[in-house]
């Protein structure tokens, strides 16, 4: 039997699962090339913050 309650809840869960997998993939990928992927709350004192890494690759 169709249920709006179950349908909306399932969609939210699916979206969350997709987002978690995507974030994890992105984070690990960035961490493996030297960036941290924004996985923490300390970007302001981080010289490896993704915004710096992406735009400004290391010299060597």
């Amino acid at each position, binding site marked *: 039997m169709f249920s709006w*309650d*179950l349908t*909306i*809840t399932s969609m*939210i*869960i699916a*979206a*969350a*699962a997709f*987002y*978690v997998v995507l*974030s*994890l993939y992105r*984070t*690990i990928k960035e*961490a*493996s090339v*030297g960036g*941290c*992927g*924004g*996985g*923490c*709350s*300390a*970007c*302001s*004192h*981080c*010289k*490896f*913050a993704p*915004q*710096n*890494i992406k*735009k*400004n*690759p*290391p*010299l*060597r």
Partner: protein
Amino acid sequence: MATPVQWKIKKNPTVTIALAGNPNSGKTTLFNAITGAHQHVGNYPGITVERKEGIINLKDVKIKLIDLPGTYSLSAYSDEELVARNFLVNEKPDIVVDIVDATMLERHLYLAIQFFEIGIPVILALNMMDDAKRQGLIIDTDKLAKLLNCPVVETVARSGRGKGHLIRTAVHHIKESGKTWKPIQISYGAEIDLVLDNMTEIIEEQQFMTDRYPARWIALKYLENDSEIIRYGKLNGKIAEQLEAIAQRTKEHCLKTLKVLPEAIISDYRYGLINSILKQDIVIQEKSRQERIDFTTKLDSLLVNRYIGPILMIAILYGMFQITFTVGEIPMGWLESLFGWISATATLLIPEGLLQSLVVSGIIDGVGGVMGFVPLIAIMFLMISFLEDSGYMARVAYMLDRVLRIFGLHGYSAMPFIISGGIAGGCAVPGVMATRTLRSPKEKLATLLTAPFMPCGAKLPVFMLLVAAFFTEYKAQMMFSITLFAWVMALLVAKLVRSTVIKGASTPFIMELPPYRLPTVRGIFIHTWERTWQYIKKAGTVILAVSILLWAAMTFPGLPTQQVNQYELERQAVSETTQGITEQQQALLEINNREGQAALRYSLAGKIGTSLEPLSRLAGFDWRTNIALVGGFAAKEVIVSTFGTAYSLGDVDPEAADTLSTRIAADPSWNKFTALAMIVFVLLYAPCVVTVVAIAKESSWGWATFATIFNTTLGFGMAVIIYQIGTKLFM
């Protein structure tokens, strides 16, 4: 003056300006002021290890600004120096803006002299002129420019004063110099000069690496025993051997006659040149000697004092926690009320069912648990930003060197520890990456394996939650003790690994202590906001998504129909038999609560938590704690959000305690020792996924696996000891 060298430069409408300078010369601050980039400025020596670029437009000129690593010289002594030098040689910027601390001209001009020697067009930015004026220094900028034969511009990077003039002068000088490199020749005394002339002649004749460097500069580098040039020379021609032989003979001669190495003589002559310039009334001290006793020196005699320094450091740390809890309690109460109101409103608006449970228990109670700590985190970050920007953190690293050395670590290990959360609230990922500053691979490995023990920003809410629940009277003392415990464990484990699996000698530590600066209110607020915003953003994105998934794992598959019917029958029986409305409501509530608990236990997450219980019970952890700790492998903030959801799903009594900490405190399966065991376990167990990847990147997957298994085993062992001893002896 040597022959001007015209490099072949591609026609490019963009002008490239490289910002260079000693560490702590205000280079990064000036870069930010010019480009408007939001990049943190601290007082850690060598903060700019990576390359940073910014584009600005000046009328019709497009300017590419490169922030080079902070260096003391252009020798190949450190990675930073090599990076800066290679950039100049390989990418040939149109001009170098050398940022010089006006209060320390003698030391800072050493780098400038080397730019003159390599010949690249240079302009000097005489930075921190406000500090110089405060110290009573009067600098004759025009005369300095005349003697150095290069433009000199006064700047104050912190306020951005002089930045426009600096860029305009740089662009003008590029046009004037015609992108021509004009190396200057410094005399290094009759004997060295003779050798240099001889070598230069050979180099020029054979055109040995002259497409990259000026000939005399190459000769100088051979005499300075520059490893990079010698290595590069070997690949480029047979005369390398001849040059090495001349350098060797010169070295032997200098050692025999003067008992010094040629590089020391070269350095002495460079300083001699600087002194001869400065002595021509370039710098005049305005005040008397007594008044000249620098504020930094006075403050350091106290703050870095062998005995008083560490006491003050501990007092500052303790004071920080005390202020955090005292001030933070008020806004925390407001946030708790806000989330309570949102939860009640959502319950009213959304019809009863799965969606209501997801929104209230999964999202609001889960994410709300993490968001509730925003005021405490913001206050703590505010104070940490003040300490960083003032220059005190560098003193902390300096003082810790003495201690770190005992445990087989290095003075540079202090910075990764602090970044990881050594003063609470950092992150192990940049902490692990900051171990790159350690040159000894063994010291680096010991540091990166132990840095994740520090109380990072993600662990803080877990500690704050448990401290608020079980140690209400001693909140600041407990947070302070947790931080100290993290350091003790990191040092002990470092000693253990340095005495067993990664044995090796210690390397010496040299560190520059930057002068104290009064941080700007704007700077502190920007840094605090950036960190707090990152925390909020993470709670509202990844943690929110993980909370939804954990809610699903804690809700499905749901109780079998048979059991649901059983509870329904119980409810019917109560409705039919129990007298009095209050008693009936009480009995129904008790049934609902039991049903909620049973459903949670029957869920996917509940089953995982329960399956771990036989082992985790040794440390006092029940199945709900197990779910939270497994979630914490992904990110430590998840622990708090999982507790929020788990206690929300299991607890259906509207009259029950309203905040998460009081709910946990009211749970009979918790006591002070469970909380202590939990704190220690969270502090020590496996780093989060991203940190594990960072460890693997900086060392190997083998060491990353070691960190995961070893840390979890250590954390669990410590938790079991604390719980078992605590409950057996004190309860």
